[in-house]
C-alpha cells in the first residue's frame, strides 16, 4: 500500500511443474511459469483451460497434487491461505453482504492476531485512505447491495489491498460488468497497478482485455501453458494454431506445404518449422493481411464481394472464393469504399500480404 511505511519489494512467483486433477480430468498438467516481480500478468484461456485453477492454486484456495509454488524463492506450496498473504479478488467479488463497505475493507485488519492488530483509529485511517485509493470516498456506510457492479469491484480491491498482500490475484475482474464500465475499470486497474507496484495476476477469457492490460500474457489450454509472451509477441508471433484461433479475427486455410513453403491466396510463404517440411499444413491469415487488388492487375485469387461493413477506421469486406464454404473477411482502407469500388456481388482479386503456416503433424 502506498505510503504505508517502506514499500516492500514486489514478490516474484515461480510455478514449477504444477499438477492437479479432478478424477480423470487434468485441470493443471505440468504447468511451469515465472511471474516477474511487479509484473501484471494475464492468464488467458477459454473456460476449462485451467486458468482459474492455477490462480486459486497460487492463492492457496485449491490444493495441488504435484509441483511447487515459490514466493521469492521460498516454497509456499504448503503454506496456508493466511500465511501466503495473498490479496484475492473473487469473480463475483464475494463482499460480506451483511457488512458495510467500511467493515468489509476493515475486516482483514480486524482479524489480525492481537499483537499485530492496529488500533481502531489507525484502522479507520487506513480504510479511508484505501477507499480514496479506489476512488470511493464517502461510501463507508453503504452495504454491498446498495452499490453498482463497478463500485463493488473497487470495494473488493480495497478489501484485498488492506492486508498489504504479497501479491494481488484477480479472478475474471471485469467479467460481471457492462462494456463501458469494463473499459474504464481496465484503465483504472492499470493505473492502480502502477501505483501499488504489486505483482498482479488476473484471469480472463477476453483476449482483448488480456492483450491491452497485461505486461505479459499466458495462454492456457486444457490445463497446459500454450504460450507465454508480451502482448506484441503473442499477437505478432502466435506459437501454435490454437493461439491463432483463440486470438480470433483470422481466416483458416487447410493447405499443403512443399519444401518448407506453402501457397495461400496467390502468395507463397515460409512455414513455421525447421527444415523442408512437406505435407498438410494449416494457414492463418488476419483480415488486415488480405489485400483487394485492382482488377486490371489480375493478381491473386478471384473473389466476390458478399457484404461490406463500412464502420470503424477500416472497412470490413466479406468475400467468397471458389472451393471454400466459409467467407473470408478482409479489412481494407476506407478510401476503397468511398471510391465506390466495393459494390455487392462485384468480382475482385484478393491476395494475402502475410500469413502464418503451421505443419499438421
Amino acid at each position, binding site marked *: 500500500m502506498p505510503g504505508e511505511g517502506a514499500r516492500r519489494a514486489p514478490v516474484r512467483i515461480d510455478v514449477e511443474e504444477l499438477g492437479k486433477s479432478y478424477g480423470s480430468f487434468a485441470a493443471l498438467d505440468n504447468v511451469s511459469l515465472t511471474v516477474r516481480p511487479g509484473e501484471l500478468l494475464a492468464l488467458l484461456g477459454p473456460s476449462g483451460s485451467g486458468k482459474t485453477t492455477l490462480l486459486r492454486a497460487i*492463492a*492457496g*484456495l485449491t490444493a495441488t497434487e504435484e509441483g511447487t509454488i515459490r514466493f521469492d524463492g521460498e516454497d509456499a506450496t504448503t503454506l496456508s491461505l*493466511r500465511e501466503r498473504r495473498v*490479496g*484475492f479478488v*473473487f469473480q463475483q467479488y464475494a463482499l460480506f453482504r*451483511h457488512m458495510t463497505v467500511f467493515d468489509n475493507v476493515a475486516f482483514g485488519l480486524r*482479524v489480525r492476531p492481537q499483537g499485530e492488530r492496529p488500533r481502531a483509529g489507525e484502522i479507520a485511517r487506513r480504510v479511508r485512505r484505501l477507499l480514496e485509493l479506489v476512488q470511493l470516498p464517502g461510501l463507508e456506510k453503504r452495504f454491498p447491495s446498495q452499490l453498482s457492479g463497478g463500485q463493488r469491484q473497487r470495494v473488493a480491491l480495497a478489501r484485498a489491498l488492506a492486508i498489504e498482500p504479497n501479491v494481488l490475484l484477480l479472478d475474471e475482474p471485469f467479467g460481471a460488468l457492462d462494456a463501458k464500465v469494463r473499459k474504464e475499470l481496465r484503465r483504472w486497474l492499470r493505473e492502480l497497478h502502477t501505483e501499488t507496484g504489486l505483482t498482479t495476476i488476473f484471469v480472463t477469457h477476453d483476449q482483448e482485455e488480456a492483450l491491452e492490460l497485461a505486461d505479459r500474457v499466458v495462454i492456457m489450454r486444457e490445463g497446459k501453458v500454450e504460450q507465454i509472451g508480451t502482448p506484441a509477441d503473442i499477437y505478432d508471433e502466435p506459437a501454435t494454431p490454437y493461439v491463432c484461433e483463440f486470438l480470433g479475427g483470422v481466416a483458416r486455410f487447410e493447405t499443403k506445404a512443399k519444401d518448407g513453403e506453402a501457397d495461400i491466396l496467390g502468395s507463397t510463404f515460409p512455414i513455421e518449422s525447421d527444415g523442408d517440411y512437406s505435407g498438410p499444413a494449416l494457414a492463418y491469415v488476419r483480415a488486415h493481411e488480405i489485400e483487394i487488388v485492382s482488377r486490371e492487375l489480375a493478381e491473386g485469387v478471384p473473389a466476390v464481394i458478399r457484404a461490406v461493413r463500412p464502420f470503424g477506421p477500416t472497412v470490413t469486406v466479406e468475400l467468397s472464393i471458389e472451393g471454400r464454404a466459409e467467407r473470408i473477411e478482409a479489412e481494407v482502407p476506407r478510401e476503397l469504399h468511398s471510391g465506390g469500388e466495393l459494390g455487392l456481388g462485384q468480382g475482385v482479386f484478393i491476395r494475402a500480404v502475410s500469413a502464418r503456416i503451421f505443419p499438421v503433424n
Partner: protein
Amino acid sequence: MAIDPLAIDTARIPAGNTPPRARFRTPLSEVPWVKFGLTAIAVAFLALMLVLPLAAVFAEAFRRGVEPFLAALVEPDALSAVRLTLFVAAISVPANLLFGLVASWAIAKFQFKGKSFLITLIDLPFSVSPVISGLVYILLFGSYGFLGPWLIANGYQIVFAVPGIVLATIFVTFPFVARQLIPLMEQQGTTEEEAALSLGAGGLRTFWSVTLPNVKWALLYGVLLCNARAMGEFGAVSVVSGHIRGKTNTMPLHVEILYNEYNFVAAFAVATLLALLALVTLVLKSALEWRYGGELAAHGRH
C-alpha cells in the same frame, strides 16, 4: 368496426386519432369473477377449517366465565404441565439449533459421499408418523427394550420419564432448523468464507462473523417453527410419557386428559395457551417474512 392491428397502415392514421384498442389481458391474468370466486373459496375454507375451531377453543374456555378459566390454569397439575413443556422446549430447541446448524453447514459447504442420503435422513422425522417416533424410543429404552433393562438396572429411567419426552421431542423437531438453513447456505455458496480466510481470518472467526450473520434470520425462523412444534407435539410424546399427572404430562397431554374426564372448561383453558403460542409464532413468522423476506426467499417453506 373490427380492427385488425396488422392491417392498419400507421402512416395513414392522423396524429392524435389512434384507433380504439381491443381490450388486452396479460396472459396470466383472469377475468374478475374467476379471481373473486377462487379467493372466496379459499377464504371460506380457511374460515371453516381454521378460524372457526380456533374461535371455538376460546369460546369453550370462557363458557363459564373468567374465574373457572383462571382456576384451570393455576391448578398444580396444569402448572406442572406448563413447566414441563417449557423445560422440554428449553432443551430440545437449543439442541436442534446446534444439530441443525452443524448438519446444514456440513451439507451446504462440503462435498462428500452420501450427502443426499444425509439430506433424506434429516427429513425422516417429517415422513414418519410421530407415534412411530415415540415407539422407537420405547423399543430402545423400554423395560423390554434394547438398552432399557441395562439402563433401568443402573437407575436411569428414560421411558415414561422426562428424558424420554425430551428425546422424542428432539427427534420430531429435528428437521426444522436444518431444512431452513440448507437451501440458503447452498445458495450463498462458500466464496464469502473463502474471502474471509484469504483475508487472514481463522475458521472460528469466519464462522462467527461471516457464516452465521448471513443465515441469522433463517436460523431464527427455523427456531421459531421448531419451538412451536416442540411445545405442541402430541403423538410421539404421548407414547413415551406414561401420562403421569404432575410428572410427565406436557400441555398437549394435559389437555387430552382433562378432556377425557369431561372437564371441558379446563381442557379448553389449557388449549388457549397452546393456541396463543401458535398465534404468537404466526405473528413473529409473518414479521420475519415481511422484514427479511429476501433473505428467507431461498427456502422451501412449510
